[in-house]
């Protein structure tokens, strides 16, 4: 009995070590006093301070958060609309096709999504003269397109689990159909929407590949900045930056998990 549980524990420990030691080493080395990123020179928080004096990093961070927040919001709006349409508005021509297509962006390789979006932006620029410059707007649109699929999938599963007679009751009691969505449907799927938003936010924050494709000169998101820095050799401030990044993403995902769990227990 004891032996077995010890065995299980060590398997568990190994698995998690495999997952988390690389991340941990980044966090540990972010408190390294040495100028060389890979040589330990004592504990210090100087690189965190350095971080906040680096204009480039601050710009990249600000851009990344702006893109993440905007694209997450747009993705939530569009994703929810798509889910509502697929689940609630009966059978229409091509519904099966559309509900299959909504999940396609989840499995298409990022490189291909990025490439096709780039081609798309270049083409419409030639035709309409917009976007004259690739950067915030193009990355935001690109992120919206793929994270919208995630939101739609989350909201759709919540919607189909929801008792449809709740909406009918509201209508029966004198509520107009357009109003029912705000009175009943949206409050009940709100947790899924929030979870979807948070997921879209972190997806956008994490993305390097698609952003690299559709970005233009001068517009560097945080992952792009880190990646370019690493190519020139890792500096300790990148470790500090990465640590903060891990913190933000973890907190957001935890909040998403907490919110959905909390509400589900209730209903």
């Amino acid at each position, binding site marked *: 009995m004891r032996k077995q549980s010890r065995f299980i524990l060590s398997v568990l420990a190994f698995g998690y070590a495999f997952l988390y030691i690389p991340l941990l080493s980044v966090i540990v080395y972010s408190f390294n006093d040495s100028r060389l990123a890979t040589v330990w020179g004592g504990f210090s928080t100087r690189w965190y301070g350095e971080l906040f004096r680096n204009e480039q990093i601050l710009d990249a961070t600000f851009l990344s958060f702006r893109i993440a927040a905007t694209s997450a919001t747009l993705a939530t709006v569009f994703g929810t609309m798509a889910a509502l349409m697929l689940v609630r508005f009966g059978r229409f021509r091509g519904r099966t096709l559309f509900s299959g297509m909504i999940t396609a962006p989840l499995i298409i390789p990022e490189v291909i999504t990025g490439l096709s979006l780039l081609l798309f932006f270049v083409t419409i620029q030639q035709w309409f003269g917009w976007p004259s410059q690739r950067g915030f707007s193009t990355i935001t649109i690109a992120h919206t397109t793929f994270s919208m699929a995630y939101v739609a999938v989350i909201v759709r599963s919540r919607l189909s689990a929801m*008792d449809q*007679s*709740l909406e*009918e*009751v*509201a*209508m*029966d*009691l*004198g*509520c*107009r*159909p357009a*109003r029912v969505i705000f009175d*009943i449907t949206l*409050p*009940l799927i709100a947790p899924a929407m929030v979870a979807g938003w948070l997921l879209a936010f972190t997806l956008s924050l994490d993305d390097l590949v698609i952003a690299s494709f559709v970005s233009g000169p001068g517009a560097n998101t945080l992952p792009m900045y880190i990646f370019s820095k690493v190519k020139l050799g890792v500096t300790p401030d990148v470790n500090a930056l990465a640590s903060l990044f891990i913190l933000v993403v973890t907190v957001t995902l935890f909040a998403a998990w907490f919110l959905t769990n909390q509400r589900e227990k*209730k*209903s």
Partner: protein
Amino acid sequence: MNSTRNPCFIRIRGVSKLFGDFVAVDNVDLDIAQGELFSILGGSGCGKTTLLRILAGFEKPTTGRVEIDGVDVTDIPAYDRPVNMMFQSYAIFPHMSVEKNIAYGLRKDKVARAEIAKWVDEVIELVQLGDFRKRNPEQLSGGQRQRVALARALIKRPKVLLLDEPLAALDKKLREHTQFELMNIQHELGITFVVVTHDQEEAMTLSTRIAVMDKGRLLQVGEPKEIYEYPETRFVADFIGTINTFDGQVSAVDEQHIHVDCETAGGDLLAFNEHELKPGDKVCIAVRPEKIFISREPPENNEDIRVKGTVDDLGYLGNLSLYRVRLESGKVILVSQQNRQRSAKRSIEWEEQIWVSWRPRSSIVLVN
């Protein structure tokens, strides 16, 4: 029934509903009087819920019209109809308290706050939910949820209240109790209730009248007694209660009676000729188990129908005894007798040779 009440309060004319090729409701004509507690009874998939949803306005009939209180409501959407519905799942809004759930309908009608509070108090009193008004739905039991759903549907004082399997989600004991409560509330408010149910016992106890449905058609409409004692089709006879049937052919007709030659009964069965039948017509004679007498000696009354048999099985239920009797033809029929005498001994035992008999009046003639 009060004679001043409108006998055609709900008027359904030629209503059909098709889902693709499937005929859910097939050319239904039905009148429901004001203040009735009307039940639509049928098995699952018989179209009863679809008919109810047509009344509520959730489904539009493919053909036909629906009138409520003299107004054609066929094209009026659910939210503008003077009709409220209680759903089978009760569909309590999970994000609102009991009070808010109940007040919802009035808030949608932009009724003044003070007025709403007054009505809510009244309805909560009616369904005895006083202690639970601030609760959230997840803290309620099944019976309490049912009350919230009922109160929420009643608060708008609808002309018609539609109830979809109102008691199906409750356990047996609670169901019986709630049944009478529903009847009291209906009586008190005088609102016309239309109940959809698959439970024939529930329909019999609750309703002033019952409509039996099968495959989208109305088979028979009548008071519970009529439906039970005078079923018009084999389906209705079978669906409501238990019944013994004998297929046969009319062999002779006299002034009042018909003689039906039934192979399974081993001879002629007598019945009243209510359908103007002629010799040679194929009919079915049906008898309810409680209309049959069971005796050791041949019954004295010569008019009675008498058939010999053996007791295959018997069951003692306290108030009743049930017998499975094998006739000489091999057919097994069900007989039930009230236990009128207080006795610990059985009067009739297993494998005993007995006579079963019934009055010609008790023979139900079903013409296919």
